[in-house]
Each structure stands twice: as structure tokens, then as C-alpha cells.
């Protein structure tokens, strides 16, 4: 099944987007594992300007590929996928990483949570099933932002940085705005979801350690991540929305 379909014919239901940057060695296996689940998902890999064969490997594995002309960042790749899903009229969106950390057998849990009426299903590695080991800086950052996210959304959130999520069409409408953050879209996006009145649920999922390659959360970037997230969160209540002329230019044009 291909990812891009006629918006009007048979209404498409669920799309899975996989943002990928230089993941040629892993993305093929991820796409195949997803397709083996037989969930009837349209699988779209958003290739974020990779310099390796990510796009052709993903295409060969049976995914539709949308390729950025140059590297734009993880959040941007997600946003392109959101806009594609919005334009094509999908009712539900699932997202997972291309590096093999997210277990495709857990996708069904996200779908079930959306079926039960959640707008945002957040796959958490910390609720149960044990989490893969991570560095001390990362654990502290996760702990801190989990506390902030829990406080600001009024519900217990254990894994705010999780990129393993499911979104309803209502949630999709919120994230196609051009103001979507280009790097590290996690705690701030969750808080914005809550402010928009969306129903959040945390779903326990199993995650694996990275199958190789480089994580985007490493070294000095964790410090920048902390700075950026605190600044964004502090300004969230008083920040102006994206100017009208610049809003939704990706999602609505055609």
C-alpha cells in the first residue's frame, strides 16, 4: 500500500510517518517490520536531506518517500509528514523513529488509545516494560521535563521526549501550523496540545537501544535542548502566534 492516495476516493484512515536522516542501514528493516504487522498503514518516510541511500532503501522496502532538498531538522521532517497527512485527509497519524528504537509491535497500542478517544497517544518507555539505558545528562533532562510536562498538562507524563506517538485528526490540525518547532518538538508541543484542549494519554511501550548511528540528543546539544525548552515553555503563555501571512503555508497550499 502506498502512502499517497486520492483524498476523495476511499477515505484514507491511518498513516505512519517515519522521519529519517542518514538511516539507510536501519530504515529498511523498520519499514519492513511495520508492514509485517499487517495494520494496513500507509507508511511514509520523510527523508530529511540524507546524504546516504535512506530514500532509495525506504522506497525499496515499500514506503512512500518525501525528500527534503536539504537537512531541515527532526521537527521539520515531522511537520512535513503532518502536512502531507493533513492534505491527504488522513484521520489518524502515527509516528515513529527510523533508527529501530521503537518497536513496531507497539504501534497497535497507540492505535487502540486513539480508538478509545485520545487525541494524542504518547508512547512511554518508562511506564512499564523497562527502558533501555541512557546517559546521566539525558536521564536528568528527561526527569526535569517530565516533571514540567506533568505539572503543565495536569496529568502524569513520564516520557515527554518520546517520538513514538499517535495523533487524531484534531491533534493534526494543531500541529500543521508553521510555528511547529524545527528542533526537539516534545515537552512544548505536549503543553500546547493540552492548552488546545486535546486529550493526552500516555501508553506504555517497549523501546530498544539504538541499533547504531548517532542520537540527536548528545553532548552539548543536551545543554542547548534544556535552554531552548525552558525558554519556549516560559514564553508559551505570552508568545504571539505565527503571523497570519506565514501560517499554514505548508499545510494548505496545493
Amino acid at each position, binding site marked *: 500500500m502506498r502512502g*499517497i492516495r486520492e483524498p476523495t476516493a476511499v477515505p484514507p484512515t491511518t498513516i505512519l510517518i517515519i522521519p529519517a536522516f542518514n538511516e539507510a542501514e536501519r530504515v529498511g528493516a523498520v519499514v519492513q517490520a511495520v508492514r509485517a504487522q499487517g495494520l494496513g498503514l500507509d507508511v511514509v518516510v*520523510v527523508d530529511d*536531506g540524507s546524504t546516504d541511500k535512506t530514500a532509495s532503501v525506504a522506497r525499496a522496502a515499500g514506503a*512512500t518517500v518525501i*525528500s*527534503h532538498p536539504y537537512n*531541515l531538522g527532526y521537527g521539520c521532517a515531522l511537520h512535513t509528514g503532518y502536512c502531507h497527512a493533513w492534505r491527504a485527509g488522513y484521520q489518524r497519524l502515527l509516528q515513529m523513529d527510523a533508527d529501530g528504537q521503537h518497536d513496531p509491535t507497539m504501534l497497535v497500542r497507540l492505535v487502540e488509545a486513539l480508538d478509545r478517544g485520545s487525541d494524542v497517544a504518547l508512547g512511554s518507555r518508562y511506564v512499564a516494560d523497562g527502558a533501555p539505558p541512557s546517559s546521566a545528562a539525558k536521564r536528568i533532562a528527561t526527569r526535569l521535563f517530565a516533571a514540567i510536562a506533568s505539572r503543565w498538562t495536569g496529568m502524569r507524563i513520564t516520557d515527554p521526549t518520546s517520538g513514538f506517538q499517535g495523533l487524531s485528526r484534531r491533534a493534526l490540525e494543531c500541529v500543521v501550523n508553521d510555528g511547529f518547532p524545527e528542533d526537539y518538538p516534545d515537552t512544548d508541543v505536549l503543553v500546547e496540545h493540552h492548552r488546545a484542549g486535546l486529550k493526552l494519554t500516555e501508553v506504555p511501550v517497549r523501546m530498544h537501544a539504538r541499533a547504531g548511528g548517532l542520537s540527536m540528543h548528545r553532548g552539548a546539544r543536551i545543554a542547548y535542548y534544556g535552554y531552548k525548552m525552558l525558554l519556549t515553555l516560559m514564553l508559551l503563555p505570552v508568545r504571539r502566534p505565527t503571523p497570519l501571512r506565514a501560517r499554514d503555508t505548508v499545510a494548505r*497550499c496545493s
Partner: protein
Amino acid sequence: MIASVLDTVGDITPLLDRQRYVALTVAATIVVVVCELVRRRKLREEYSWVWVATAVVVAALALEGDVLTYLSAFVGSSSPVWTLFFGTMLFVLALTLQFSVRLSRLTHRHRTLGQRLALLEAELQRLREREEAQRSADRRAANRAAPDREHDVVA
């Protein structure tokens, strides 16, 4: 306030000739370099005027020593040289901040452009595949209708 500023003006030594020449040389160099960059099309006119304006202000203050003396008294500096370079530094600071703002705007546009291009290419790819599928379906239908003319239709 004005009276106290005027009181201190007398204590300030005006620019020495040598200092004046240095400031004028700096201003002239800025103008020459900026003009040369515009001539080589490495700097756009819209960004050049701010630099030329900086040079003109520096030159004017160096030539018209009184204004600089009053300014020094106003900011509480005993040295007009300090005032001149502090002013220039503030100006450059404002300039870099403005560039950061412009850069943010450009980044947003460049991001949106890349995303729209990517979606457009995916859409084009989908349409091409559909057209190709349609064409081969038509070909098969035509071949079924007239099997003996198969080669004509394929050609």
C-alpha cells in the same frame, strides 16, 4: 541636568589631531571597502547603506569636535575617544541583532520552501506513477480489443 552637563564640558579634552585622523581613516576605509564590495556584487545595496551611514557619523563626529565633547559630557565620559568608539560599538551591536532577526526570518522562509518543494515532488511522483499505470492499462485494453494490431498500439 543640562546645566550639570555644561559644567563638565570644560573638563573634557577635545580630540587630538592624531585621534581625529585615525577616526577619519577608519571612516574612509569603511566607505571604500563597502563600495568595492558593492562593485563586486558581493554586498547588496540594501545592506550597504547602514555601513556607509556608520562611516559618515564617525567622520562627522571626528570633524565636528564640539558635538562629541557634549556627547561625552552627557554620557559621563571624560574622553571623547571612548565616546566615539563606544557609540560605534553600540551601533554594530544593533546591527548584529538586526541580522539575527533577518536570519530567523530567512530560516523560516527557507524551511517552508524546502518543505513545499518536498511535498510538491512527492505529489508529482504520485501523478506520474498514476499516469503510467493508466497508460499501461489503456494499452492492455486496446490489445485485448484488437490483438492482431498489438504492435501498432505498442509503437
